[in-house]
């Protein structure tokens, strides 16, 4: 790669975090640590002020006659669209909106768990996404949200949502319960008119206004997926354990080398799945909530005198993707089967009793114990199918049906509306801003680098990620995270630690997964003190000690503190409302899970 290209890429990575390329503190180990990326050219900083707090005074409600009277939708025209009257904004019960608003302000569903739902979602979804800031674009879009707020006569959000961007080609947007809206760069790239972007923003904003995060159905998806999540983490932890031992023993037999290779393969696949888990674990809207968000989006657009000319393009793009997905269902199943075969093959190899015993007695993983490995391997062999099969499923109305329903909704609710013409001015400004080009370059290069990592080309991934600023605090956290994974898998834990440290001390959007991977790496290299520091930092930053319980158990087992592990396990089993946490603790300490099933303490044979 030419130096000029590298410099350009580094510049692209840095633009959102100002200037200066001070490297992260290096660990004191012997380090073939990565040199910091070259200092980028200074970029003009765009300051995005924190949106002000908006108090909730009383329970606001629309004045009489300020909203159009609700009309019935044509039953035949609306099809499967769930709303029967339009506009929705004229039919909402103010008291219920207020109650939901207050719950959102207090962090989510009271009594679901010790941690509010808001923080749960943040720690399981946004904290795992490859997010970054685009200040100029955020300022442009925040002005739109401020206009929506003026068109909303009910309880206001406690602040105008922050807008973050995802380094992804996917056509997607998400609302998060802390009043953050995430827009993928792929969506902005695809948008060819203002109405598309405005509709998407209004749709996500509507989810927040309607307090959908406070509805019970929003967390049902996570419960369904708890087992799959647990197994994904079992694969990753198990493979990482073996990989750690392989690098230490140094004189592996052919069989052991094969196991180590399988371990690497399984780890890579499990990393792929943990990326997927970002969304699986997160709450899902149900069909009604999705229809409501579509409807309120139209209400907000009309109420704030914004264009709706080509919002149907959003559904057209989604429909294309939907049809392609249906058409490729066989391919998807084939992918799932391949994944399953690979994992099964890897785990079989690793769970071979002789290999495991040999590794466990000669390597550095003895503290974890052969029973743990055997138990984990056996559990995976029995359950691996559900990991891949649990991924997928269509639950929402097809986009074309949503478009039809919304057409009927608009006809019934707005028979005389005359919204302005779509001039394309806003999307034109966004795409003409140099920030946009830098962001698309960053995204493309990051995806390429991530693919190199998944392909096992660690050297290539490292070079590509360093060109994006890996090793510095100013680059997006996900760049340092993947660089850390790549260095770890290449066997250079010192370099990996350097990248992880840069990520956790950096100015990017913090990524909880980085803390988990970092702590696990330290556990596997027997540096349990370092692991404890990383876990402590993660607990402090994410304010979610329960989330780290499973890793804490692993650390305690690795440091020989069986009593401590047992105590933490007990605390973990008491966590309510977040099924994936006890599942992960069971995966971390299958002996305890097995002992509970077998209170007499009889040593059950491998396979139970």
């Amino acid at each position: 790669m030419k130096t000029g290209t590298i410099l350009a890429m580094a510049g692209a990575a840095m633009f959102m975090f100002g200037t200066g390329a001070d490297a992260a503190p290096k660990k004191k180990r012997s380090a073939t640590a990565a040199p910091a990326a070259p200092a980028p050219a200074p970029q003009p900083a765009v300051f995005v002020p924190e949106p002000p707090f908006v108090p909730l005074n009383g329970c606001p409600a629309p004045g009489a006659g300020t909203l159009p009277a609700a009309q019935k939708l044509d039953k035949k025209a609306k099809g499967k669209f769930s709303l029967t009257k339009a506009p929705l904004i004229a039919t909402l019960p103010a008291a219920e909106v207020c109650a939901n608003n207050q719950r959102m302000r207090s962090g989510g569903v009271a009594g679901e768990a010790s941690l509010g739902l808001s923080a749960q979602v943040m720690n399981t979804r946004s904290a795992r996404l490859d997010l970054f800031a685009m200040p100029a674009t955020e300022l442009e879009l925040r002005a739109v949200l401020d206009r929506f707020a003026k068109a909303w006569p009910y309880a206001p959000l406690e602040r105008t949502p922050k807008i973050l961007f995802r380094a992804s080609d996917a056509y997607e947007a998400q609302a998060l319960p802390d009043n953050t809206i995430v827009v993928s760069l792929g969506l902005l790239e695809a948008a060819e008119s203002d109405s598309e972007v405005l509709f998407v923003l209004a749709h996500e904003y509507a989810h927040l206004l309607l307090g959908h995060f406070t509805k019970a159905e929003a967390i049902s998806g996570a419960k369904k997926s708890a087992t799959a999540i647990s197994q994904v983490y079992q694969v990753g932890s198990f493979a990482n354990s073996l990989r750690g031992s392989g690098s230490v023993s140094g004189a592996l037999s052919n069989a052991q080398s094969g196991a180590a290779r399988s371990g690497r393969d399984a780890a890579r696949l499990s990393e792929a799945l943990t990326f997927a888990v970002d969304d699986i674990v997160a709450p899902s809207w149900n069909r009604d909530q999705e229809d409501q968000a579509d409807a309120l989006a139209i209400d907000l657009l009309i109420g704030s005198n914004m264009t709706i000319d080509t919002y149907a393009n959003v559904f057209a793009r989604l429909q294309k993707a939907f049809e392609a997905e249906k058409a490729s269902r066989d391919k998807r199943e084939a992918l799932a089967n391949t994944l399953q075969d690979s994992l099964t093959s890897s785990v079989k190899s690793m769970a071979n009793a002789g290999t495991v015993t040999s590794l466990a007695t000669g390597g550095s993983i003895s503290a974890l114990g052969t029973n743990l490995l055997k138990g984990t391997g056996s559990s995976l062999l029995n359950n691996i199918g559900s990991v891949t099969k649990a991924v997928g499923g269509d639950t929402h109305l097809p986009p074309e049906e949503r478009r039809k329903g919304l057409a009927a909704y608009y006809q019934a609710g707005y028979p005389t509306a005359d919204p302005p013409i779509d001039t394309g001015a806003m999307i034109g400004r966004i795409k003409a801003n140099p920030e946009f080009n830098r962001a698309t370059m960053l995204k493309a290069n990051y995806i390429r680098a991530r693919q190199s990592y998944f392909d096992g080309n660690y050297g290539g991934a490292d070079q590509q990620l360093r060109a994006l600023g890996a090793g510095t605090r100013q680059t997006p956290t996900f760049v340092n995270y993947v660089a850390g994974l790549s260095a770890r898998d290449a066997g250079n834990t010192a370099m990996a630690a350097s990248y992880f440290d840069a990520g956790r001390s950096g100015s990017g959007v913090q990524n909880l997964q980085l803390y988990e991977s970092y702590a696990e790496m330290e556990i596997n290299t027997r540096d349990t003190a370092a692991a404890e520091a990383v876990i402590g930092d993660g607990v402090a930053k994410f304010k979610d000690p329960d989330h780290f319980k499973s890793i804490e158990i692993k650390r305690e087992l690795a440091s020989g503190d069986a009593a401590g592990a047992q105590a933490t396990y007990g605390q973990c089993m008491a966590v309510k409302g977040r099924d994936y946490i006890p599942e992960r603790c069971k995966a971390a300490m299958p002996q305890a899970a097995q002992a509970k099933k077998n209170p007499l303490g009889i040593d059950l044979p491998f396979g139970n």
Partner: protein
Amino acid sequence: MARVGTYLLCIGALATGLAMAGPGEAKRSKSDTASAPAAAPYAGPVIKAYKRDPLPIFDDAGDVVREVTRGALPPIGTEGARVVRAKPGFVGIMLDGELAWLRMSMVDYVGDVKAIKCNATTIEYAKLEEEGLDQSLGLGCAK
């Protein structure tokens, strides 16, 4: 129609490519089109929904010239509902042998939207993430 392919345009792209007028200038751009060269012929997908009944028909200047009841309009999804012209805010269909401009906010019409750009990684993860992407707007990649 000769060289139809040459003139295939996406409505959105057309709108984006035109002057960056603010909302206040939108009306002016309507009247500006009266003296502007005729919009490029368009042979794209069809109108998918009429959202007014009766539906206003506009002239080249952007003024309402008449209203047509749903029953007198070509059925949605048929050749008759094919969009033959497009300009910001309006699409044109042939009605009784004459060009009739329809306001885009009163119909559902999508141009030839591009498939979402994907690379192998994105496709792979989009498929893995299908359930998650379903939760809001996205369905990942089309390829």
